């Protein structure tokens, strides 16, 4: 008679025990992750195939934490259009900022995986293109079912990644702490140097013999600004356009000129900007310098060269512009003339 209730009790206890065991295991995992995190300066844990199975493939009940995984590939760091190294440093910044805001948090961990050493995990996650960031939340049962961060969240780097985390996990990342460009001491040193140099600078300016009094410096500076702006260099800086592209159909061929007026490549802008500036400089040279040359023969030759080059440059720019924008500029004549 006696064992029966006992057995019932056991049956009742079993799931409880199981649950407790799971919880203990979860605590272990969290503390292990925390210690791993403490080892890395920015708090990003480096995962391998084995640690992925240990920390992420475990049943959901055993991992009460979310993990944001950055998929990295050292072999692709050299590709400039992927921006992998930049994104990786931004990821580290994000992790450090989160850690600074929530010290000792066990809810969210940051990790990265390298392709060459953990190909199996890449396969498990179903990652076949980079850049790729995934968030594995406790409720995700399979690795492939976890949520991928959208391309748009890379746009504003760490700030937009933080928004992603906040919207998906409800955890607050806090302000992104970027290391200042110069350290405090350097700033102080530079400030002192600047202060010391002021009286000397004023003295030189009053005496009128600085670089600032040289017209050539001003002229070349102005010319450079002109050249740079007219060639759309600012576009290149703001949009991070490359100098040239490789042709899709033929990888050995390079594309320097992009058709369509909404976009430009760096090289084409500078080429056209150079032509703009060249023609202007040549006309300036003729009207201001060439008239002073003594030899008639030199003048003739130089003018000929200027006219030929100028003609060619203007023609070239007009042709390129019509090709790029697709406009066809035409005149308007009285209809009776046709």
């Amino acid at each position, binding site marked *: 008679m006696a064992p029966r209730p006992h057995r019932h009790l056991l049956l009742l206890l079993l799931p409880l025990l199981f649950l407790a065991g799971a919880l203990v295991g979860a605590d272990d995992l969290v503390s292990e992750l925390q210690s791993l995190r403490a080892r890395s300066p920015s708090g990003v844990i480096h995962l391998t195939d084995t640690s992925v199975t240990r920390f992420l493939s475990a049943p959901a009940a055993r991992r009460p934490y979310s993990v944001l995984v950055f998929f990295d590939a050292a072999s692709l760091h050299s590709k400039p259009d992927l921006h992998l190294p930049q994104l990786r440093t931004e990821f580290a910044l994000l992790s450090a900022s989160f850690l600074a805001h929530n010290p000792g948090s066990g809810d969210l961990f940051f990790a990265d995986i390298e392709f060459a050493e953990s190909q199996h995990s890449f396969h498990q996650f179903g990652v076949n293109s980079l850049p790729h960031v995934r968030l594995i939340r406790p409720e995700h049962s399979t690795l492939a079912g976890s949520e991928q961060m959208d391309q*748009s969240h890379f746009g*504003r780097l760490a700030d937009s990644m933080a928004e992603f985390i906040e*919207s998906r996990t409800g955890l607050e990342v806090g302000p992104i702490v970027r290391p200042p460009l110069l350290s405090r001491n350097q700033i102080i040193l530079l400030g002192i140097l600047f*202060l010391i140099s*002021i*009286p000397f600078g*004023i003295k030189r300016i009053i005496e*009128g013999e600085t670089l600032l*009094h040289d*017209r050539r410096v001003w002229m070349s500076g*102005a*010319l450079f*600004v*002109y050249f*740079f*702006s*007219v*060639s*759309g260099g*600012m*576009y290149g*800086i*703001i949009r991070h356009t490359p100098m040239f592209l490789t042709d899709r159909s033929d990888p050995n061929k390079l594309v320097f000129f992009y058709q369509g*007026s*909404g*976009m*430009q490549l760096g090289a084409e*802008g500078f080429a056209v*900007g150079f032509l*703009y*500036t060249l*023609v*202007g400089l040549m*006309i*300036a040279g*003729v*009207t*201001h310098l060439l*008239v*002073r040359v*003594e030899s*008639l023969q030199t*003048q*003739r030759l130089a*003018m000929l060269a200027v*006219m030929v080059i*100028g*003609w060619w440059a*203007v023609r070239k*720019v*007009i042709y390129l*512009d019509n090709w790029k924008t697709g*406009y066809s*500029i*035409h*005149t*308007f*004549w*009285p*209809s009776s003339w046709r």
Partner: protein
Amino acid sequence: LKETSASPPPLLFLLSPHPPELCFSAAMPQTQSSTAASGGGGRLRDAFGGVLCAFTLLLIGLLAFSIRLFSVIKYESVIHEFDPYFNYRVTQFLSKNGVYEFWNWFDDRTWYPLGRVIGGTVYPGLTLTAGTIWWLLNSLNIPLSVETVCVFTAPIFSANASWATYLLTKEARGPGAGLMAAAILAMVPSYISRSVAGSYDNEAVAIFALIFTFYLYVKTLNTGSLFYAALNSLSYFYMVCSWGGYTFIINLIPMHVLLCIVTGRYSSRLYIAYAPLIVLGTLLAALVPVVGFNAVMTSEHFASFLVFIILHVVAMVYYIKGLLTPRLFKVAMTFVITVGLAVCFAVAAVLIALVASSPTKGWSGRSLSLLDPTYASKYIPIIASVSEHQPPTWPSYFMDINVLAFLSCFLPLSDASSFLVLYLVTSVYFSGVMVRLMLVLAPAACILSGIALSGAFSVLTRSMKFQRQTSENAGDGSSNALANSETASKEKPSKKNRKRDKDSEGSSPADHMTEEKLLVLPCGPAAVGIMLLIILSGFYVIHCVWAAAEAYSAPSIVLTSRSHDGLHVFDDFREAYGWMRHNTDVDDKVASWWDYGYQTTAMANRTVLVDNNTWNNTHIATVGTAMASPEKEAWEIFSSLDVKYVLVVFGGLIGYPSDDINKFLWMVRIGGGVFPHIKEADYLRDGNYCVDAHGTPTMLNSLMYKLCYYRFVETDGKGFDRVRRYEIGKKHFKLTHFEEVFTTHHWMVRVYKLKPQKNRVRGKLKLKPAGRSSSKANSMRKIGGKKNPWQ
């Protein structure tokens, strides 16, 4: 036929600037040196030159005016686009109610239920100008309508701007270059794009004010006259009234003053040109309500005050230098520098602390994105998203200033034009950051190109007129030295650079001849060179006429398309606004995306929720949320805002690409920015925005989709969208909470009415919505949950 008949005048004018220009480059030295060789012939020549110059200027003004009439000839005399409709409406109010009413105008027809204080939030310059013109004409018994005056304000002011350009360039380089620059500016495409007839916007008058202010500054700098300095601050005041771009002036002029000081060119004229402008100009600027205390509080103006202080310190140093002996001066100098520096640091520290306490360092987002071009794209996506704020590519330069891009880098090596060079360099940099600021670059490019072309023409024609004798080498050395000494006497001693100033040619006829002979080119190539330059200018004229006729004259309120079977005119916008004006109650509220707010208030005279002023992001987000929500939630949002009609713009039938479906993602983004239950991802299938069979259910159930494509399948049986170029995803559906009341001829504008609340049916509805009173709102809260942001 109309197009072709309009073109001869511009083409005729093409050549007209050149002959007088050539005359003047030869005549001007005469006028300047007429003291030495003044005779009856010279005076006659001057008088003739003056008349010719005035006549040419008149023609240039006419050219500037008439090249902007393509929009009227090709379309009709209407106000263009979006913002001009607001300006037009304000001008109407002004002409009807007077200045004081305008100043205190609180507009309740927009931003319902908030309203907007118009008098305190607009730059009043344009409105007051057009209002004055209208009043003047009417008091002269010329009964023009306000609309006509508004349409033609911009062309009139571009004629003024080209005259101002003449004055400015003449001040810097002489009348020949002035005429050339004026002719070029009269037809520069960049400026045409903002000032065609009907484009009634602030920039139209502001560019004139900008150039005129610069003219008066240079004039004051050259003459040192307080009269011009006072005029200058008045002109600056007009600029502040007209356009937010006045900050460019208030930073450029201090930069030039600083440049002059640093390169050792301080003079009392500089002081007179600058100090009154800052004192009077700042006081006057503070009078404009929209600027107010910003004139002294924001960082955009700090540079001018800093330079003001520096200028005074330098002036004092020069004054003391005149009083003391060199040795005493040295002692005083050391003393002043030590004390001055200490004071400076104290002031600077306080200033920095003040500035640093504000999060944006006292700068507005737009100014910051000019200084740091990557700023906006990183932190202010709403600024970065506006198409006017994109960085331009090189074809934009070619489109907007054309061959001037070749010429304006031709820097004239003259003292007087350092201001112009600085103007060019700063504006070309700014235009590189924002395509909109190409407009500020255009005058600078025109002026410098005018100078360059005039210089080149003058050298080449001179080469054809005077031939050099090869045997005259012996005389060269002496005349060269003489020319150099003359140049030196005209310039400040600090400049040692060898330079040729053609205005300094000969003080006596003999010198004149020798130097003329020295500075010539061979005749043959010079003739070819002239031909090439004329071809270049001809190409410029062709480009400008083409740009004015084809690219920049579309009013965007009336659309045309040319196909094989002739010209099609799409006048749907005015059709829809006219319908609303006549068929809806005067106090009805109309909801639409903010782009159409100004037009709705101006043309339909109905109250709107949001308009192009975009000052309240939350309100815009509410409308965006409603458009992105399913029908029922949208109905709740709209009816909580008393909206009676909803207006959508749909281009799928005729292929009009800038319709609401293409703008829809912005509605979702802006709406989601304030109300997080709207998520952009819900509207995208694999990151792609589409409304075909792959479209997400959220997308296909959104109000915008339904209002745009309701009954669309009836047009061709397939529902093929000509903008997106595929068949739509959900073709047959019914509207439950909205009913279609009007669709225009080409389906471009569709107007829907909110259906009234359903009658209560006993036993069917547990929660009773009772009428449209506040009790309804309460019950809505229970039903709708937190979907409606207004409850």
